[in-house]
C-alpha cells in the first residue's frame, strides 16, 4: 500500500536534514536534537523494511533504537549540564581546549 521506496527516500531526506543540523548548529542541545532526528529517520526505514518483509524484527530493532536514544539523551544532557556549570553558555565554538 505504502511504497517502501518512498519510505526509504523520506528516511534519507530526514537523515540528511539531521546531519546538516548536527554539523551546522552552534547550540549543543540542538545538536543533540539533530541526532534524535537522525535516529528517527533510521526508525522510519526500519519500520518500512519490517512492513515490506512482513517481519516484526525490524520493529523490535526500532524499539531498541528508541531505548538507546533515551539513554543517549540522559547522558548527553548530563554532560551539557556539567559543561554549563563550568562555563557560561552551550555554544560549541567556545569549546576549544582540544584544538591544536
Amino acid at each position, binding site marked *: *500500500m*505504502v511504497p*517502501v*521506496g518512498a*519510505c*526509504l*527516500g*523520506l*528516511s*534519507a*531526506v*530526514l*537523515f*540528511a*536534514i*539531521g*546531519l*546538516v*543540523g548536527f*554539523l*551546522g*548548529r*552552534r547550540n549543543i542541545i540542538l545538536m*543533540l*536534537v539533530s541526532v534524535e*532526528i537522525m535516529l*528517527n529517520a533510521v*526508525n*522510519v526505514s526500519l*519500520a*518500512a*523494511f*519490517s*512492513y515490506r*518483509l*512482513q517481519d*516484526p*524484527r525490524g*520493529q*523490535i530493532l*526500532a*524499539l*531498541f533504537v*528508541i*531505548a*538507546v*536514544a*533515551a*539513554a543517549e*539523551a*540522559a*547522558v548527553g*544532557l*548530563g554532560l551539557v*549540564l*556539567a559543561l554549563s556549570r563550568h562555563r*557560561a*553558555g*552551550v*555554544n560549541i565554538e567556545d569549546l576549544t581546549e582540544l584544538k591544536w
Partner: protein
Amino acid sequence: MPIIAGQIAFSYLAAGSVASAILAVTRKNPVHSMLWVLALFLHVAGIFLLVGAEFLAAVQVIVYAGAILVFYLFFLMLLDLPREAAGPRFGAHWPLCAGAGLGFAALAWYSRNLRLVPNAERAVAGAPSLGSLSAVGTALFTQFVLPFEIVSLILLAAIVGAVVVARKKGTS
C-alpha cells in the same frame, strides 16, 4: 479506494515531516525548534501507523514526544534564551555542512536503485495484521529476550552515569 487514501496520507505525512524537520533545524529560537521537532515526531508516528507498526507509533508518541522531548525542553530552560536567540544559529562553516547533507541525500538517492530491498514476493498485499502487538510482543519476549534485558542494563547505566556526570563536585 483505501489504497489511494493511504497514499494521500503518506504524501501528507512525508511532506509534513520533511517541512517540520527543516524548520526545526533552521529556527533561531531553540524553543521553536523543539516545537517543530515535536511536530516531526508526531508525523513520523503517523508514518509508523501507515506501515503497520502500531506499537512503534505508540512508543514514538509516549517515549519520544512525551519523555525525551520534554527532557530536552527542561534543559533549554536552563539556558539564557534571549542571548541564545540573538547569536547566529549556524557556525561559519555552514556551507560545508549543507554540502555534506546534500551529498548524503544524493548518495542515498543513488543507492535507492541498487536493489538492496529484495523483491518481496513474501509481502502479502494489504496484510495489516503483521504489525500487531502480539507478533511484536511474542518476538520481543522469546527470541529477543536477552537484548531486552541488556537494554534495561543500558538504561540503568545511563541513569547512574547521568547522575554522576551532572552532580556538583564536593556534595558527595
